[in-house]
Each structure stands twice: as structure tokens, then as C-alpha cells.
């Protein structure tokens, strides 16, 4: 051994043994510390990848919502497009609460003898409560009759609660607070295992985001609600931004309920909509510690929040419904007022053609400037799109239209009030802390604010409090303090981005109000992996997802490269490559650092052959040669948005839409995405999917038909991956056996 060429002269023959030992030790130590630093780097950018993709998905959702709002403002009521989605914006029925109770009646639902799940009688007993937990642990499903019953009782109970729950730690009780669970039943069971189930002696606060993304959202909800019914004074639920039917459409909860409860899913969802709107907004412990889901802004005022009619805000993403003053318990949609009073918008069959230049991000139009005049000097924080005031903008115009109509003279004033209240709620559910002072709109998510340490200090002193506990953001250790330990972020869904991506945590507060944190990680798999393996596995998943994202923006990327490659050499420098990619993707990722993972071949001077690059990224296209390539790419890229729109169009939540609605959907999309779809192309699509020729498209089938696979990983594993909603993207169906 000892190849003279490759060895440096670190070890001299003349060195004494002691000296050699020390040199050897130092060598290893140096190496190791370098290795740790590099792992940390990897971990950071992997995290960054998942988080950017998650937030850009949320942003996309809000943009979609703005688009629909835009349509509502610009189409006549008779046009097909408006009808398609108008139900979505209307709480259509004019109903008293008692009528709703009839609608949700469960008594005529029979429970068949073969049903093997738990049977419930009401009022619930403790045995039934823990029985339910056991049943779910054993993968049973609760029958829809009991679900409706349970939900009805929950609804009745929640209506009695104030907006802000007040709790005390008297009697030396420790309160346990949990963060986001996102349908991850395993984590909830782990918490109960470690900490015990809720009881008089063991009060709990659950801080929102119980549903979406995970596979057991309904089970998590049912467990939380049953404990709420058993211990109404000791279990406190705060609303999260995912307790919102609009968000649920995209992030999996709606789909989960409709899949598990085919017959009664629609009613269950409707009832849940009401329940969500009745969830309390925050919890205050010993008047000193504030627990809420997202955060605060510089205008957050607990006394305002205590007074709002929280149930008016069925979705935090919609402006509040206006109350018709003469009918107290009845909700009337303000839009009905506008139309019925004879004020109509100038009718346009289709909006005028939108040019590329209108939008900043060509792949997803931002309609915020269409719903109100753009704010001057919209800042681009971290290179992301500014959606400043997007939601407020939408409401301003809509409310502005309502104000000035006949019925209510003081509508102007109440619309101001409503708007302020709405902003308070939005901030509460969607905001994130930042390290700099100040308070700016949170354009990454598209709702709420970023608030700084000065805002925290001011808020705490105004309200005479000492600590804010919030959730909303995934943290690697399950929790994180910031703002000089005055704000605690708590996240209870472990392995959220991927197996072993992060721990979960819960906090216990005793009368001394000193937070005591407990961490955990569900799934025995992760404990067997070394740090390196864990980081490696997560990195692998993140990159896989990223490659797909890149591929789905192929046309935009190629044209960006071509802009830089004026002489048409087919090559771009590394610097240009990184700039172009960021310019198209807007994810704020360290592309240079990722290059060795994303590009395998480079010229000796580091230049990138971009056409070649796409062959590498390569996705196996589905068996639809007759479908135009541009269309396929568009479908693939916007599959989440597509699915969301389908579900909106599917008015009876049956999972199936008819051919006519299918065509109308494409018309909607062609406007939204500024792409021309020929009638032919759409027919081809329809025919391809409607395999039984009954004139109906099954949404699920449609999405599956466009299953695309990553050629690279297919070669590795010989399997294809299902590309579904954002929910599916972040949770690969199966763990790669090679890892």
C-alpha cells in the first residue's frame, strides 16, 4: 500500500508514535466535522425544497381562488361558466338552523348487521371514547350514522363556546398543547400513549390543522370531537387554516371523506363546514399564554376577536356574508342582493384576451391585480410573487359593490367592520413569524402576515401576556422558539415531508407556565436509520419531486434558456442555467448546489446542454400519443389545480362530471392558463378517459390516466409513481425498497 502519487506528506517517517497518533486523530476529527457541516447543508436545502413546494402549492390555491372570484365578477349570471362555479360562492340555501338539523338527520340511516366497527350511543361514555380510539387503531371505520350523530352533537356544543377559550392551570393541573396533526393518526396515538388521553385531570389544547395531507383526517377529527363531547371543559380545539372547506378541496380531506363515505360523504362534509366555522379561534391560559394556530399581526386585537360572529367565516378565504338586517337568524348571500336589486355588471361573454405580459408568473396567473388596482411598490420578498392584499383586494371590490345597493343604508360602515374582522381572522390563521422587525403581508402563503419581534413585544405588553404558542409551520425538531423565546412554534405531525424528515412535539404547561417540551417520531422505520441514511432518504425524495416539477415546466424553461443562448449553441453557462431556472420556477432554491444531483453531464467548462438535460430528467409519457404534447405538459403541471376545479364543478360531490361540464371546465382553464384548447383536443381527452362511453368522466380515473412516472426512478425500481394532488406529492405511496 502507499501509492506515493496520491498521498500527501502528512505522516513523516521521523515522527514519533505519539505525534503520528495526534496527527491521525486530528485528521479524523477534521474530516468528521466537515462531514457534519456538509450534512447540515444537505439537510437545509432538502428542507428548503419541500417547504418551497408546499408553500407554492398554497399560493397556487389562493391564486385559483382569486381566479374564480374574478370570474364571478366578470361574467353574467346566465353564462355557463358562472353557473358552473356560482354554487361554490353561494351558501345557496336560505335556511334556519333548525332546517339544517333536518338535513343532517341520521335517524333513517341503518347500520347493517355485518358492520364490524364501533357502535355509539349518545351521550357518549368514556368507554365508548377509548373504544373509538382502539377501533381506529385497528383500522376500523365508523359508520356514517354515528359520524353524523357525533358531528351533530359536536356542532350543538361548539355553538355554545366563546371565540376565545379561557383556561386555567389551577389545581396543579398541567395542560398539554398539541400542534398540527394533519390527519396523521399514528402521531395522535403516540401522543396519547406517551401522555395519556384527555380527561379532567389531563386537559388538552389542540391547535388546529387536524385535517388534510394525512390519510386519517376524519379519524383524527372524530377522536378529538369525541373527547370534546366527553370533557367539554377540559378539551379545547382551536381552528386552523386547514379547517376550511376551500383548502380541503385541494389538500385531500374532501377526497378522503368522499372516498370513505360514498353515500353520505356530502352531508358529512356540509356538516363539517359548519363545525369548522364554529371552532373557537384561540385559547388563553391563565390570562398569560395565548394559543392560536397561525399568529398575529400588528393590528391583532383580542377584544375584537372576542366579539366577532366567528361562524360567519365559513372559509377564511372568502369575504364574509352580509347579514340582511331584517332576518336575524338567516344568512343571505350578498351577491343575491346585488343581482336582485337590478345592478348587473356589464355583460361580457368572455373576458378580453390576457397577454403574457399581464402576469408575473406565466404558469399561474395572479388575478389580484384584476380584482383591485395594484398596490404601488409591491415588494418582491425573497424573489417570490407579491400577492399583496390579494384577498383583501377581492373583498374590497365585492363589498364595494354591495355597499351602495338599496337594502342597507349603513352597509358602508358594516362592510368596513366586516373587513377589519376578516383581516383579524385571516391573520390569526395564516401568519408566520419573521426575524426582522415590522409586519408585512405574507405573500409566500398568500394570506396573513409576517410579523416581527417588535410586534410580539407590543402585543404581549398590550394584552399583559408572556408567551404566544402557535403552530402552522413544520419544524425539524417539532418545535422552535423565536422572538426571544416569546413565541413558540409547535408542530405535532412527525415525518411530515417524508419518512424521517422531522420530529413531532407537544408541550406541557403547569401553573408556573414554563413550557416543557416532549418530542417523538412515529414509525419504527426511522429509528433504525442512521443520520446519514435519514438525510439521504429525504434528500432522495425531495430531488425526485423537484425533478418532476422541473420537467413539468419544460417549455417555459426551454424558452428561458433560448433567450440566454442567443447563438443557439444548445449550451448555457452554469450561472445562466441557475438564473433561468429560478426565473421560471420561483422557488428560491440553491440551484447551483443542486446541480450535481440534477444534471449528470456537463461540458468541461461547466456549461449545460439544456436539451440533453430534459432527456435526462425524462418522464415517461402516458400512452396518449394522439394527445398534443403541450396539452399533456400543461395537464401534468397543473394537476392539483385541475383536480380542485373538477371537484368544484362536481356540484353533488359524486366524483363524476358530465361531458358538458367537462367541456366547460376546459374553457375555464383555457382562460386561466391562457392556453388555447381546440374542441378536438378536448374531445380526444374526453374519449380517452370515458372508457365506458356513458358520457360521464370519473374524476379519479381522469387523474390516474395522466399518471406520469419519473424515468430515472422507474429504471431503478421498475414501478411507476402515481402523480396526484399536492397531498400525494409529499407523501410517496410506498417507501423505496432500495433505501
Amino acid at each position, binding site marked *: 500500500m502507499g501509492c506515493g502519487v496520491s498521498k500527501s506528506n502528512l505522516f513523516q517517517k521521523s515522527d514519533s508514535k505519539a505525534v503520528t497518533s*495526534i496527527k491521525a486523530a486530528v485528521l479524523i476529527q*477534521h474530516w468528521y466535522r466537515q462531514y457534519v457541516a456538509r450534512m447540515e447543508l444537505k439537510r437545509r436545502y432538502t428542507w428548503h425544497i419541500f417547504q418551497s413546494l408546499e408553500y407554492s402549492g398554497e399560493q397556487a390555491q389562493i391564486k385559483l381562488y382569486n381566479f374564480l372570484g374574478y370570474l364571478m365578477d366578470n361574467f353574467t349570471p346566465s353564462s355557463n361558466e358562472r353557473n358552473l362555479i356560482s354554487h361554490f360562492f353561494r351558501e345557496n340555501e336560505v335556511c334556519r338552523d333548525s332546517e339544517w338539523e333536518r338535513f343532517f338527520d341520521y335517524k333513517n340511516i341503518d347500520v347493517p348487521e355485518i358492520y364490524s366497527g364501533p357502535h355509539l350511543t349518545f351521550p357518549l361514555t368514556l368507554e365508548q371514547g377509548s373504544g373509538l380510539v382502539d377501533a381506529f387503531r385497528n383500522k376500523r371505520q365508523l359508520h356514517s350514522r354515528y359520524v353524523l350523530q357525533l358531528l351533530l352533537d359536536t356542532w350543538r356544543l361548539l355553538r355554545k363556546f366563546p371565540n376565545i377559550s379561557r383556561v386555567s392551570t389551577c389545581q396543579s393541573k398541567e395542560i398539554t398543547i398539541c400542534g398540527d396533526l394533519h390527519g396523521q393518526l399514528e402521531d395522535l396515538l403516540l401522543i396519547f400513549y406517551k401522555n395519556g388521553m384527555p380527561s379532567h385531570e389531563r386537559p388538552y389544547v389542540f391547535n388546529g390543522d387536524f385535517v388534510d395531507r394525512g390519510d386519517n383526517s376524519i379519524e383524527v377529527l372524530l377522536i378529538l370531537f369525541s373527547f370534546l363531547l366527553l370533557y367539554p371543559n377540559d378539551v379545547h380545539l382551536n381552528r386552523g387554516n386547514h379547517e376550511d372547506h376551500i383548502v380541503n378541496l385541494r389538500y385531500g380531506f374532501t377526497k378522503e371523506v368522499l372516498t370513505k363515505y360514498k353515500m353520505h360523504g356530502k352531508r358529512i362534509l356540509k356538516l363539517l363546514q359548519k363545525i369548522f366555522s364554529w371552532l373557537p379561534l384561540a385559547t388563553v391560559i391563565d390570562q398569560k399564554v395565548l394559543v392560536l394556530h397561525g399568529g398575529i399581526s400588528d393590528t391583532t386585537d383580542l377584544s375584537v376577536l372576542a366579539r366577532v360572529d366567528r361562524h360567519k367565516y365559513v372559509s377564511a378565504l372568502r369575504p364574509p356574508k352580509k347579514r340582511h338586517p331584517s332576518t336575524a337568524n338567516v344568512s343571505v348571500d350578498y351577491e343575491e342582493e346585488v343581482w336582485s336589486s337590478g345592478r348587473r355588471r356589464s355583460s361580457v361573454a368572455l373576458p378580453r384576451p390576457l397577454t403574457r405580459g399581464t402576469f408575473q408568473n406565466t404558469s399561474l396567473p395572479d388575478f389580484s391585480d384584476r380584482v383591485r388596482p395594484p398596490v404601488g411598490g409591491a415588494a418582491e420578498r425573497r424573489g417570490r410573487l407579491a400577492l399583496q392584499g390579494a384577498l383583501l383586494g377581492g373583498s374590497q371590490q365585492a363589498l364595494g359593490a354591495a355597499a351602495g345597493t338599496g337594502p342597507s343604508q349603513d352597509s358602508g360602515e358594516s362592510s368596513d367592520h366586516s373587513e377589519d374582522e376578516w383581516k383579524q381572522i385571516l391573520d390569526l390563521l395564516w401568519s408566520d413569524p419573521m426575524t426582522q422587525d415590522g409586519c408585512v403581508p405574507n405573500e409566500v402563503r398568500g394570506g396573513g402576515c409576517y410579523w416581527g419581534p417588535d410586534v410580539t413585544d407590543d402585543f404581549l405588553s398590550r394584552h399583559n401576556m408572556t408567551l404566544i404558542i402557535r403552530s402552522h409551520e413544520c419544524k425539524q425538531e417539532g418545535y422552535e422558539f423565536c422572538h426571544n423565546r416569546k413565541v413558540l412554534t409547535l408542530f405535532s405531525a412527525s415525518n411530515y415531508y417524508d419518512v424521517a424528515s422531522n420530529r413531532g412535539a407537544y408541550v406541557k404547561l403547569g401553573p408556573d407556565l414554563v413550557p416543557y417540551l416532549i418530542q417523538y417520531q412515529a414509525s419504527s422505520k426511522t429509528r433504525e436509520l442512521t443520520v446519514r441514511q435519514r438525510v439521504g432518504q429525504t434528500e432522495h425524495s425531495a430531488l425526485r419531486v423537484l425533478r418532476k416539477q422541473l420537467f413539468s415546466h419544460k417549455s417555459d424553461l426551454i424558452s428561458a434558456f433560448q433567450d440566454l443562448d442567443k447563438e443557439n449553441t444548445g449550451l448555457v453557462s452554469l450561472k445562466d442555467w441557475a438564473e433561468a431556472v429560478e426565473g421560471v420556477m420561483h422557488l428560491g432554491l440553491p440551484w447551483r448546489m443542486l446541480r450535481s444531483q440534477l444534471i449528470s453531464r456537463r461540458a468541461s467548462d461547466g456549461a449545460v446542454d439544456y436539451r440533453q438535460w430534459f432527456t435526462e430528467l425524462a418522464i415517461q409519457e402516458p400512452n396518449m400519443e394522439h394527445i398534443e404534447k403541450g396539452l399533456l405538459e400543461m395537464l401534468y403541471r397543473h394537476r392539483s389545480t385541475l383536480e380542485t376545479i373538477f371537484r368544484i364543478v362536481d356540484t353533488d360531490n359524486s366524483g363524476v362530471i358530465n361531458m358538458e361540464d367537462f367541456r366547460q371546465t376546459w374553457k375555464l382553464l383555457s382562460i386561466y392558463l391562457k392556453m388555447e384548447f381546440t374542441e378536438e383536443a378536448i374531445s380526444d381527452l374526453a374519449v380517452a378517459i370515458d372508457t365506458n362511453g356513458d358520457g360521464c368522466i370519473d374524476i379519479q380515473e381522469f387523474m390516474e390516466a395522466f399518471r406520469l412516472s419519473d424515468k430515472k426512478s422507474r429504471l431503478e425500481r421498475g414501478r411507476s409513481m402515481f402523480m396526484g394532488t399536492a397531498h400525494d406529492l409529499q407523501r410517496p405511496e410506498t417507501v423505496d425498497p432500495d433505501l
Partner: protein
Amino acid sequence: MADPAAPAAEFSADQVEDFKEAFGLFDRVGDSQVAFSQVADIMRALGQNPTNKEVRAILGSPSDDDMANKRINFESFLPMLKVVDTAPKGTYDDYVEGLRVFDKEGNGTVMGAELRIVLSTLGEKMSEQEIDALMQGQEDENGSVHYEAFVKHIMSI
């Protein structure tokens, strides 16, 4: 063959861009700066091997308070990176040679226990946690480490 003890040439433009990106990843505040306390880690992530003492000296011997609170931007950081770049880097054979020192029986293995003692008492002492992480999965049933495989494994990151 280049004398590894000689100082490296100036960083290329590409290298500087790479460093800048990595630097940006460690900026958790968003002010295009990093804390003094992060500088050593960033340097290591970029392939250098400074000791914590060296880094502190380069930063101008700041107090503990300064280390925790003061921040530095990329333009000030880059020349510091240059300074530590002169430290000789080990190759595969260097590491193997270094570990062979502890190979008492000359059979390609070292005792895990001995390695632990050495790493925690000599040179820039490692903590028990660091050593555990380093050695995880490396010792066989007899508590021995096959060091050539070990080095191959650790260098494959």
C-alpha cells in the same frame, strides 16, 4: 504534482458563486448575512478544515457575546475563506494511513474502543455525542472497525 502545502490560486468566478449560494442557505434572517457562530460550519461545508480557534482568530477574536450576536456578510467572509484554504487536505490514503497507526495486529482493523479514546483525548477533542454519531454502525461484533471500508464510507458523502 502540485505541492499541497502551497496556497491555492484565486477562487474562480464559478467557485465564488457556489460559495455565495451556500452562504445564503445559512442565512436564516434574510439580511444576506450569517452569525459569527456559523462561520466555522460554513467553512467546513465548503470544504475547509479550520479549527474553531483559527476561525475565532480570523474573526478578530470576538467575545462570546459577539460570537452569538454579530453578523457578517459574504464580501467580508470570502477573504477569510481564502486564508483557511491553505490548510493541507487529506486524501483517502492519508486517512487510511492515519488509522493504520492504531492497527495493532496489522490486520486491517482497529479497536473501536481505542479509536474512541483517541478521538476524545487527542487533537481537537470530540464529544461523546460526536463520536457516537461517527461510529454508528461501523463496529463489528468484536468491536473492531475495518478502517479501509470505514474511510471509503465516510468519504462517499
